């Protein structure tokens, strides 16, 4: 094939262009530490990179959710331990009070103590995490009352009555969202309370895996206790709540005309509170165990996510990052080739016959 100067020049130029493109590509790879400057340079790596990035983003969302769930549960746990202490000291007082029933002054002291415990119970039910009530189900912010004050989910209504000695006493009722919980005979309201007590806040801690992060105060308070014996010695069972138990206990201590459905009075009446209070404590303890179970599960999930994060970061790095040693070696080679091609090109395209004719 006949080769002319213009062929030599155009070959030189096209190879020069190729060399420059290679150098440019390598330079961008080194400067940005990315395997590909644009998505069309390596579509397969783009696919892996997108998958890895997506997994990492979802993972970080789940990790945040797990951390926040743990905080909620810890707050609930602390409050439940308070409840446990309240109930423990209450039934210890019950044992003491039953033994020293005849001493009115002592009995009165215990009564006042139990009243405080009852109020503390109410207070604990309204524990908040930040500005949100933990045991109120979806009622996390309460409401604003008529006087502008903040009304929490659990409140107490009082009703006065006259006891057997003609003394006016007060009875406290637990209310949730303003609806009376204790001794409520209205079936609509009872149905409402039942459905509200199932409301728990859930977070998504894994692919469509939801975890409850709250307990409902109504569920915590529910117990089924014996409130006396009938004529044939069979126990009479009643569905009630711990608050009511505490309120009954308080009034039994203060007012010696109180009788229970089985006709007990006096010291034996006080004694009859010990067993239900222990039952209440067991109920709280089993809820505590469930909290423990949930936090353990969250810990396991968290450590698995930490491992996953490492794996996905590795996958992302494999897909996206340039291998520095490889790229620098190739850059050096490309530079050498470039310089050689320039030198050779200069030698070849310059001389022509004209230089040699005189």
């Amino acid at each position: 094939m006949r080769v002319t100067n213009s062929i030599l020049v155009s070959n030189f130029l096209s190879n020069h262009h190729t060399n420059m493109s290679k150098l440019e590509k390598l330079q961008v790879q080194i400067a940005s530490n990315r395997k590909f400057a644009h998505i069309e340079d390596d579509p397969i790596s783009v696919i892996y990179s997108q998958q890895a990035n997506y997994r990492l983003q979802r993972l970080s969302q789940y990790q945040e959710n797990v951390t926040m769930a743990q905080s909620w549960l810890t707050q609930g746990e602390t409050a439940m331990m308070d409840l446990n202490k309240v109930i423990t000291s209450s039934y210890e007082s019950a044992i003491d009070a039953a033994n020293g029933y005849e001493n009115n002054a002592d009995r009165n002291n215990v009564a006042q103590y139990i009243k405080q415990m009852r109020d503390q119970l109410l207070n604990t039910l309204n524990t908040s995490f930040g500005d949100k009530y933990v045991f109120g189900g979806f009622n996390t912010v309460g409401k604003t009352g008529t006087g502008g004050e903040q009304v929490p989910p659990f409140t107490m209504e009082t009703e006065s009555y006259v006891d057997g000695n003609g003394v006016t006493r007060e009875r406290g009722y637990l209310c949730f969202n303003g609806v009376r919980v204790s001794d409520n005979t209205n079936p609509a309201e009872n149905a409402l309370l039942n459905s509200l007590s199932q409301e728990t806040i859930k977070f998504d801690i894994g692919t469509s895996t939801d975890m409850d992060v709250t307990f409902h105060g109504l569920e915590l308070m529910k117990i089924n206790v014996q409130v006396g014996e009938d004529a044939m010695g069979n126990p009479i069972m009643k569905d009630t709540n711990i608050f009511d138990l505490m309120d009954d206990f308080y009034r039994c201590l203060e007012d010696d005309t109180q009788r229970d459905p089985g006709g007990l009075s006096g010291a034996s009446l006080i004694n009859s509170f010990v067993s239900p209070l222990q039952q209440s404590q067991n109920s709280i303890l089993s809820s505590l165990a469930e909290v423990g179970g949930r936090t353990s599960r969250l810990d396991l999930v968290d450590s698995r996510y930490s491992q996953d994060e490492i794996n996905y970061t590795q996958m992302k790095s494999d897909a996206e990052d340039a291998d520095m040693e490889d790229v620098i070696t190739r850059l050096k080679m490309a530079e050498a080739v470039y310089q050689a091609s320039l030198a050779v090109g200069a030698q070849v395209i310059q001389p022509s016959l004209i230089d040699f004719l005189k």
Partner: protein
Amino acid sequence: MRPTFFGIEVARTGITVSQKGLDVTGHNVSNADTAGYTRQRLVNTAYDPYNANSLLRPLDAAMVGGGARIMILDQIRSSFLDRQFRTEQTALSDWTTRSEGLTYIRGLYENADGSSITGAITGLFDGFNAMVKESNDGQQRSYIRSQAQVLTDSMNHIYNRLEEQQGDQDLSVKTVVERINTLSEHLVELNKSIYRSEALSNQPANDLRDKRNLILDEMATYVDIEYEETMDNKFILKIDGHEIVNHITHDPMTMQHSIDSNGNPHNFVPGFGDPALPSFVPLNFGAGGITGGELKAHIDMRDSNDPEHPGIPYFMEQMNTLAQHLVKYVNEQHMKGWTSTTSGNASQTGQLFFETYSTNPLDINDVSNVTAGNIKLLQAIIDDPYNIAASSVMIDTSNPANMQKGNNENSLALYELLDRQDLGTIGSYYDFASSIVTDIAVTLNRCNSSVKNQQSVVDTADNQRASISGVSLDEEMTNLITYQHAFSGASRVLTTMDDALDNIINRMGRVGL
């Protein structure tokens, strides 16, 4: 009998031919890097002895030829290589133009972190997740509002840019057709000049033919061309089987177009014949018609919805599908929830999350009118983020059943839309958004490979042409020396003949003078 001035005449022809040779060499050298120049070569023959075939030729004298004469001044060019080059050039400019268009589209989908669309989708659901953890917090709700707006803004932006690019490709169609017509007009002028010049002088019109070849090279980048030169020296150029130039007749390409909403012409359709009449024949793009060239690339980019050979409408359709699925499923779930009363408005259900800029009310059972260009966040949510329906139950703090400000069940359901794999025709949101990005990456990658491969084919064809037709300075210098020596030699012969004649004329028959 030998004519007296025979020798001088012979030498003179030698001088003429050498001078012509020097001129041709000079012309070649001056045009060594002129684009499209074909090297020219002088073809000489010797004159036959003048009486070789005549009745009265001498029987015993050796017959000497009468010198040299120029037969033809020819250009050395291969028309086969020209055709090869033009065919490959047509394919190359198709790929190159497509690559430019697709690169622009790729720029829209890519940002520094890898992609703008996939990031916006995960951002939206990140916002829903934040609202799961804090249903009543104004700041978290503002966060989800801004994430949703980032998504709709990105989609609007991409869609609008695609539309603009479509308009640019459309204008390019018009520009290319006009250029083809200008070139074919030049071609007609050249045809006239070449025909006349060759008819009068009987020598090929070399430089004019070079110009014609340059025009044909340029035309080949726009569209597939078929051409031939007939036996009676007339040149015919055909595009898609239509004779656009037949010697000096010019039938220019025409365009049909429609009028857009601003009254400007758009959607140009090139073809032949009067666009207003039914006899208009549009160009046939595809096998059997136009298979390459810049015109086809612009039209493909403007019109093609084919996944094998995608153009702008294909990418717009993908964005629209994403927008439609966002509108349908996010709204469906959002409408099941209740808004919050924290800003003082009553809690409502059945409220949209995404709406459109169009004035027609949105029907989520028929989202075919939703495009990526008209999707937007509901105005009521833009005004007040407490209008996002996080709760699954109505909120009313005066009613014990409705103290639901902490209810996050609808936010949870909205967030878990991201996990669903069964959404309409797209599967899952992220997978679809991600496939849009990989689609453009793969398409552009394929196109760029084709450009590179085709470029080297074109370069090879061009090199082969240059090998035949290009000027080599060394060769021309050698020829220069040859002609120079021939010229000196012929001049010497002339001087010698002159001396001889001088002897005969001035010194013979002077005996006795």
